[in-house]
């Protein structure tokens, strides 16, 4: 996230964050054979999805929102892996790559126009100045929010359907997460592109649409974000529409043979699909409406808001539970064990020898009488050793 925007786009969309998903998908048979581990994966995924989504609700840095949304989407992919929807997870990796790259590059375009400003509270109403960025960004938002027929809809739906088939609780939480996604993405959209411009005058004068070197990639990615999901249309709409599923089938063949995925009735599938789309749509519209009228300082402080703004204090908890104790342990090792005990012992031997030397010197008094006495004592000792031991 902190990297240059194109690097963030690359990392978040394609390379690093998805490596873990790929690894689990690739070694799917191991996880299929270990159901407990798989459940752990699902729960970790879901928790990540929800936690990151809630954090994204309160962030004001445009790239931070996107970064947390990546974490949240990763959670979905893990959920998919955890419930056995390997195809769905890989599918989501792909669609996510399209729209997340689009969103990051769009954000980059915005930041460029704002002369390096990243705080959304200082933006607003950019759609007039940046029509191409605005339109493509909107398409990206719709895709990530899971609005049909954009790409995110198909992949997210596949994961949620599998979650439902596995355990309806997973699905309920998952749908809430999806709604949150729609909310924070349109909060981002509304704060950035709608309403009045809230930045400084200098920034206002600087506003401009980005050059084609930036907009052309945005347009290409926007097209992909729209149509990218069409390689995986579920059975209920188009028979044999899941081309990606067929393409990947050999990879997951063993896992699927071991535990065949539970089949949902078509009616049920339609209903759950409807519910999640509807909820997301409501969240989307609410956010759009609310944040179009955003003014600086209009948000009220509250405890939950603070908690979310500070990312559930995860960093602080890590710091307190892991980093600090480890550091203290290291300091303890360094100051007490290393310097006092081990080195203290080593140097202590030297000191003891020195001390002994100083004490033994007193035997050498220089008095012949004392020497003879000591010699006689020595003789006695020798006789005792020889005759009695």
């Amino acid at each position, binding site marked *: 996230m902190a990297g240059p925007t194109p690097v963030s786009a690359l990392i978040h969309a394609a390379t690093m964050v998805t490596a873990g998903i790929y690894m689990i998908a690739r070694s799917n048979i191991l996880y299929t054979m270990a159901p407990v581990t798989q459940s752990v994966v699902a729960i970790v995924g879901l928790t990540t999805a929800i936690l990151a989504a809630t954090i994204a609700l309160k962030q004001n840095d445009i790239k931070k929102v996107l970064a947390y949304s990546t974490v949240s989407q990763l959670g979905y992919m893990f959920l998919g892996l955890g419930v056995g929807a390997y195809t769905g997870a890989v599918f989501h990796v792909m669609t996510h790559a399209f729209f997340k790259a689009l969103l990051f590059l769009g954000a980059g375009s915005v930041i460029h126009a704002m002369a390096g400003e990243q705080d959304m509270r200082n933006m607003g109403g950019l759609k007039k100045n940046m029509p191409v960025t605005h339109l493509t960004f909107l398409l990206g938002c719709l895709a990530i929010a899971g609005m049909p027929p954009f790409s995110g809809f198909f992949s997210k739906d596949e994961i949620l359907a599998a979650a439902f088939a596995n355990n309806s609780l997973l699905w309920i939480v998952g749908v809430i997460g999806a709604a949150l996604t729609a909310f924070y993405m349109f909060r981002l959209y509304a704060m950035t592109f709608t309403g009045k411009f809230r930045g400084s005058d200098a920034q206002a004068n600087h506003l401009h649409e980005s050059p084609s070197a930036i907009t052309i990639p945005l347009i290409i990615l926007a097209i992909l974000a729209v149509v990218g999901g069409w390689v995986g249309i579920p059975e209920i709409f188009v028979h044999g529409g899941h081309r990606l599923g067929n393409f990947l089938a050999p990879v997951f063949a063993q896992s699927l043979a071991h535990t065949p995925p539970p089949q949902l009735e078509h009616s049920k599938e339609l209903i759950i699909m409807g519910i999640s789309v509807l909820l997301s749509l409501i969240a989307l519209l609410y956010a759009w409406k609310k944040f179009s009228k955003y003014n600086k300082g209009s948000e009220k402080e509250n405890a939950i808001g603070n908690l979310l703004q500070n990312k559930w204090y995860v960093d602080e908890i890590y710091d307190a539970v892991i980093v600090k104790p480890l550091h203290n342990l290291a300091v303890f090792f360094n100051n007490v064990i290393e310097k006092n005990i081990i080195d203290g012992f080593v140097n202590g031997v030297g000191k003891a020898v020195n001390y002994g030397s100083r004490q033994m010197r007193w035997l050498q008094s220089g008095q012949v009488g004392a020497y003879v006495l000591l*010699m006689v004592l020595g003789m006695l000792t020798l006789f005792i050793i020889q005759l009695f031991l």
Partner: protein
Amino acid sequence: MNAIIFSAAWGIVMMFSGVFIKSKQAPVYLAITGILLLFCVNGFELYYGHSFFNINTHDMLRTSSFNLSFLAVVFGCTLIYFLLSGSDIKKVGEHVGEYFALIFFVLCGVALSATFNTLLLLFLGIEIISIPLYILTGSSKLNLKSNEASLKYFLMGAFSTGIMLMGIAFIYGGNTAASFYINNITLGSGPAPVMIIVGMVFLVISLSFKVSAAPFHFWAPDVYDGAPTVFTSFMSTIVKVASFFAFVRLFENAFGNIQNQWQTLIVFIIIATLLFGNITAIFQQSVKRMLAYSSIAQAGFMLFAVFAINDRAREGLILYSAAYSIASIGIFAVLAKMNDYTIEGFNGMAKEHPVLAACCTIFLLSLTGIPLTAGFQSKFFMLMAAVQNGHSFWLVIVAVLFAAISAYYYFRIIQAMYFKDTETPISFNDHISKGFRFMLAVSASLIIILGIFPELLLGWLYH
């Protein structure tokens, strides 16, 4: 036999040289000639196996390749001593010839105590060694410390002489053969009569005194410190190893077959000696005194020869005598030329006198027992002897730990010479001549050569 007669004769020659020759330098050359001849006549006996003199000693003296090669080492070391320190002996006082005469008498005593075969000749030998030393210790007439040391040495030496005589008397009384011959003292390896054991303990005590083994070493630091440095050099090396040789020969021949009955005693003495010598040496600020203690510590290692008594021990003793004597004589020779005896006095020597510093370093490394030096080989042989002996193996480990401690004080001098700087140049009481540096370098190379090829020395043993 050659050595005894020749050394006594040359002693007399040296004594009268003072009457006929007034030059102070001439006796030095005379003495060097004498020691060279002594070395040669002894070498002749070693090489050809018979003496010039055909005297019936009634087996009271016995020569063998072992004691003759030991004598060769002693005379060789004395030669080095004369070459290195001859000019310093000259400076001790007026009667240069007499000092050399006394030294030759000591050598006569050494030859006697190396070849003795009866307790009486042992006593004679030891006394002939001791009495000239009392005089040499006090030879710096105007120096109070020297006089004090001489008196102390004499008093305590008399004490130990008495003990030795008492021991001999006990053994004579307890001995069924009523004989002074050492081979007849203990027959068989059963428990020896108490009289003999008591006599033996008295002998251990008096010989421990002579080799300055703890707890009978108290005279040594004071005497070594008080005596003129050149004579300290002689006393703490050549004389000491001679006493050791007598010690080993006595115990090998007289008590060898009851070894298990006295080994504990020797173990005690070894540990006490290593402990006193090494630990006390650490604190010393004067290099001369430090060397005195170090000579006690080295005695602890040499006692392994008495402890073990086997082939390795005999070889080790010969090697040790050479390695220890050459190294100590070398350092004392440098020390004798210096005005400041403290360790700080050596500061910065490497820069001003690189040859001196390098040689001293080799001597000190040898005393510590670092490989490639004769000191290592000698310690190595001693340790091998002790391990081979099989008794009290832990003693060997204790000994090597003390050897590590000895590095502490030897390396202090190396550190001073190489790593510390000094503002004032080192002051010498004498010109450091080219010849001196050359001799020092020769001695250092000897240490290295013996460290690589100890057979050169040991080959004589099996001639």
